[in-house]
């Protein structure tokens, strides 16, 4: 077997277990990109095991993996196949053989603390005049805004909605402003382990120094890495849907308006499949007066990935024709929903694009749950 790959994975802190594989195929059978691309993670596991991996540089499909971790969830033997892909990517990163757009994103994170190529100083520009205090002043809830909601125009609207909702619910919250730096969830998943370590080394003491008992993230990606990979002490990490569900249950978040629309919901992989947060987003949506909630067929554990994770925001993929997000928006439209609700900035971007490309704009609107909540306040 390719002892070095197994060894390497161990060194990187990954739980990959090549020797446990029974070649059942559950990983690839559930892999969202296994039909549309050449990626077959089950076969890769076998090749790695018997030391027959081809030249990695030629395997562009390694970058197709969205790190949805469906394969990890479904594998009966805890092989953690996606972590083989991360290990292989880390080798490619080492040798500099990575897609240029991913390289640019990584460089931007290294220099400016965000993958989008914007200046660090502008990170909190969206928040000006909204009366949001600095977490440095002390707060009950540290809100980790995230890179995309900080800089991306569409997602800034979601961040503003969040601020409005938190304020209305009387939450004592603060943000880190220009000190906030990329969580590194995707950095780790594209295999840039050195940079990820650096982000944790600098980020962990910063986050802990706020002294807030709770951190709430806008993005499921930040939520995932903070919860599982930062080992934060004295701080509970929540995705905002969990936080809102809690506020609603405690009677702290109440609605005075209505959203009279038919709404369906797309489970983000990093929230649903990977962290089993299925009920809270639905509870929040169903608590909004006027919302008629409908489900798609592929939901919860069987949800279809939007292809936005694992570095795919910065890499088109080897198949640009058949996007899963295209399938997804059609499925949403078929339910009769007017709004496709999301809870992740990457899902927002992938699905909103798909709605445009598929010409569904007059039927279906993609909105974050936060925006729907804010609308009903």
């Amino acid at each position: 077997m390719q002892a070095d790959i197994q060894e390497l994975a161990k060194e990187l802190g990954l739980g990959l277990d090549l020797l446990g594989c029974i070649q059942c195929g559950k990983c690839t059978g559930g892999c969202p990109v296994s039909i549309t691309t050449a990626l077959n993670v089950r076969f890769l596991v076998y090749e790695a095991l018997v030391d027959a991996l081809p030249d990695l540089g030629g395997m562009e499909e390694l970058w197709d993996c969205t790190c949805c971790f469906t394969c990890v969830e479904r594998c009966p033997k805890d092989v953690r196949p996606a972590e083989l892909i991360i290990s292989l990517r880390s080798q490619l990163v080492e040798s500099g053989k990575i897609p240029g757009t991913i390289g640019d994103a990584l460089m931007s994170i290294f220099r400016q603390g965000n993958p989008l190529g914007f200046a660090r100083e502008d990170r909190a520009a969206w928040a000006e005049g909204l009366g949001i205090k600095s977490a440095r002043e002390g707060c009950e809830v540290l809100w980790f805004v995230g890179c995309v909601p900080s800089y991306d125009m569409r997602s800034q609207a979601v961040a503003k909605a969040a601020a409005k909702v938190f304020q209305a619910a009387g939450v004592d919250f603060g943000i880190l402003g220009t000190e906030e730096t990329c969580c590194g969830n995707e950095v780790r998943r594209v295999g840039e382990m050195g940079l990820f370590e650096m982000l944790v080394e600098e980020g962990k003491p910063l986050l802990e120094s706020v002294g807030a008992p709770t951190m709430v993230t806008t993005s499921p990606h930040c939520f995932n890495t903070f919860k599982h990979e930062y080992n934060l002490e004295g701080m509970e990490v929540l995705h905002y849907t969990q936080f809102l569900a809690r506020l609603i249950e405690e009677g702290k978040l109440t609605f005075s308006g209505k959203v009279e629309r038919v709404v369906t919901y797309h489970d983000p992989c990093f929230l649903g499949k990977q962290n089993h947060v299925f009920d809270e987003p639905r509870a929040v949506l169903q608590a909004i007066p006027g919302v008629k909630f409908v489900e798609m067929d592929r939901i919860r554990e069987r949800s279809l990935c939007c292809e936005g994770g694992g570095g795919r925001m910065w890499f088109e993929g080897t198949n640009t024709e058949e996007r899963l997000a295209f399938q997804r928006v059609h499925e949403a439209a078929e339910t009769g929903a007017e709004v496709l609700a999301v809870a992740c900035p990457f899902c927002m971007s992938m699905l909103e694009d798909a709605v445009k490309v598929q010409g569904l704009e007059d039927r279906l609107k993609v909105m974050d749950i936060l925006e729907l909540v804010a609308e009903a306040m």
Partner: protein
Amino acid sequence: MASAKPAALVIGAGIAGIQAALDLADAGFPVYLVEREPSVGGRMSQLDKTFPTLDCSSCILTPKMVDVGQHPNIELMTYSEVVAVEGEVGSFHVTIKKKPRYVEEDLCKGCGACAEACRMHGRVIDTFNQGLGKRAAIYVPFPQAVPLVYTIDPNACIYLTRGVCGKTFKCKDACPADAINFDQKEQFVEVDVAAIIVATGFDLIDPRTKPEFGYGVYPNVLTGLEFERLSSASGPTAGKILLNGKEPKDVVFIHCVGSRDPHTGVPYCSRICCMYTAKHAHLVRDKLPDARITVFYIDMRAFGKGYEEFYDRVKHEGVIYRRGEPSEVFKRGDKLVVRADDTLLRRTVEVEADLVVLATAVVPRADTEAVARLLGLERTPDGFFKEAHPKHCPVESTRPGVFLAGCCQGPKDIPDTVAQGKAAAAAAMGVLHQAMGNG
């Protein structure tokens, strides 16, 4: 009972317990056979045909059921449970609770007039048919039941749940033998036995623990046991494979659902599902000659006598075996889609289906721990009862005088279950003989 010899207790009257009880009784020992359901028969009574010979299950089981009901050396106690066991090998003192049937066993003729008349007729979920059909509140689980005595389901009967059922009891009025008696109470019977055989059988895992297969979401995703009822002449469709009144054109079988998977608590292979799936595929071919039949498997395990040959036969009947464990079932239009990595093609495929059958894992009975505590038994890490030694004491439990038979010790098919039932009976006879010498 006719014999004055020391007695044995057999707990559970599936094929394992039935066989053990018959062998002991034929050897002249008195046997108390305790079964908690209203009838003997166990899982085997729910099966249609049996692999690899395709004998009809009830044709080979019913004569044995009738025998245990009539044997002069067997005291059959159905709808009963063991509640206390004291003493030790050679002299156990056992307390058995007889649950009230609200029907007098010696009066009921088994005619079923009560069930026809019952206000709940056709409204109670039929557990024997795995919920695929409906029955009355007063019922026999299946027509060949032994004893053929009706029982009132205390959770479904209007009178027993609400204290009143219309102006008059429809069941009582209909009964020609005046057998219905709502004054029946629980009874406790105490018996002395020298040896005990545990034959409590198995459960199947709830496939909802593998949500990716959509069981409970799609009505045309069934378990193997549900398929047995669908295919059985005594089942809800009289043996026709019909879903919502329609014959399926594309049928997909999925092996190893929940098995070989430490996450579901089933790290082991369930041993019977490769073969019963082959049998199911054959039954579909037999009843629906034009159906497209696909079986998805990880490894094909056909190790018993005549088993590989049966697998060969089924393949030649046009059943397509594809290697790869499906990962997802979803809907497209009015078809289900089964998505799998065909590991031989090295390509992910989507196979359409009108019926998906899941070969669910064999697991220990839900109350195994309670039974273990009652009898002072140990369990192996897989949850089944532990044998004294896996090689040379396979039917002895870790407690002297208590023996194990059938699937309560681990998953097995009928030939192995019957062999173990016979072995447990033989081993128990040693103890009984010794007790005879002492007494």
